[in-house]
């Protein structure tokens, strides 16, 4: 047995102490401030996040011409909406939306790392960063989606998009049946980050 395959028993407590020591040293050395990390985290809670993507998708559901513009020129369509400043900011400089249809289901992956459209979706969930997902979704997406609880019949084409250059992708899921009378705000609540990356569909609550 070699050390390579062993973890410290106090793995999380040790990492917590180490990152705190690093943050403290960086503050002491004048590299960041005592508010820097919280400023970043606050930005992702209030400005960049899946709440923006949900607004974009809900608008696409109620306005088919907006949906057409969204998949044709994603940044221009997003700029039409009253979203916080920064929708073309960090990791959103070049975004492209793909829309699901009755015949096509889209799935976004990044086999090299964890490219993700921050302004509209915030930060990537753990499943997206997991090497097992990144590896398997490229070759057997239907099996992977099944493990997420989303069976996709073989008659529906799956399009897998590997974000290996500078474009950040997201999915416009289909509007769920039974939502005809809902307001745009009510529709927003049905849109999850998982639906906007293609491992789920939007469901009427």
């Amino acid at each position: 047995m070699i050390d390579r395959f062993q973890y410290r028993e106090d793995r999380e407590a040790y990492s917590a102490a180490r990152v705190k020591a690093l943050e403290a040293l960086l503050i002491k050395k004048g590299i960041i401030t005592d508010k820097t990390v919280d400023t970043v985290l606050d930005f992702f809670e209030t400005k960049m996040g899946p709440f923006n993507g949900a607004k974009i998708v809900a608008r696409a559901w109620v306005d088919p011409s907006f949906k057409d513009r969204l998949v044709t020129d994603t940044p221009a369509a997003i700029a039409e909406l009253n979203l916080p400043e920064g929708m073309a900011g960090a990791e959103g400089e070049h975004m492209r939306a793909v829309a699901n249809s009755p015949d096509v289901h889209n799935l976004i992956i990044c086999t090299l790392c964890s490219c993700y459209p921050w302004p509209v979706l915030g930060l990537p969930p753990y499943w997206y960063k997991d090497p097992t997902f990144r590896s398997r979704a490229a070759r057997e997406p239907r099996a992977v989606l099944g493990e997420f609880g989303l069976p996709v019949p073989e008659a529906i084409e799956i399009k897998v998009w590997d974000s290996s250059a500078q474009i950040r992708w997201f999915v416009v899921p289909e509007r769920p049946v039974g939502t005809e009378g809902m307001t745009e705000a009510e529709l927003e609540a049905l849109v999850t980050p998982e639906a906007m990356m293609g491992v789920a569909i939007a469901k009427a609550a």
Partner: protein
Amino acid sequence: MKLQHYLGGLEGLGPVSTETRVFVETWETRIFGIHTAMMALSSQLPLPPTPSKFTTVWTWADLRKGAESLNPFDYFKFRYYEKWLGGISGYFIDNEYITADELDALTEEYYSDPSKSVPAAGDAAIDNRVVQYLVEGDSPKRDTNVSFDFAVGDLVSIKNVPSIEHTRLPGFLRNKSGTVETVYDGAYVYLCDTGTDGIGAAMPVYCIRFEPEDLWPGNTEKNFSLYADLYSHYVEAPAAASAKQAA
């Protein structure tokens, strides 16, 4: 080759994680915040200077180079943000912002007393620039005259460039053929020069469609297609590829 660059299509990995949280441990939020601040304070950005003592370059490429330089067994052993913590700590030590000894010593202090707080200090201008970076981003698109060798619908071959430190060419696409789906408008730089791998300068980017049956013959699912955005340096005409094979 590095296993880290050949993830797509690996066999025998077991079920996927369906964990939807972004952070599974509170400490992970802190290293994410530090990384984002470093990207925002990085010296190549055209943003106003701040009193921050951070004077070097830190981009996604630096983070990825760090993770990809790990022994492959360690790459798969460590969790995502554990790799970040190791790589970022190593960067600050290697660039002499801090010493390994002071980081180790302070780690012991916080380990013994997790309630001990971090020091209070800093100029608000530093945090303003961090927010400015998040809002404005760092577009890789350049107004450079470049030639587009391929058009939508063209059959193309993917090179197998010698990638040593870092690459944006997934291993499972090397030496394969695909069809150009989209020619992106304009030219795109990468965050660093990848050396023999060949990207860095502004060049076209293509979205290329691959048939999974060509990628993994007899060992893939039906009725799906795989698309990848690839820098033009990785793409060549099929004739060029077959000439090389014949030579």
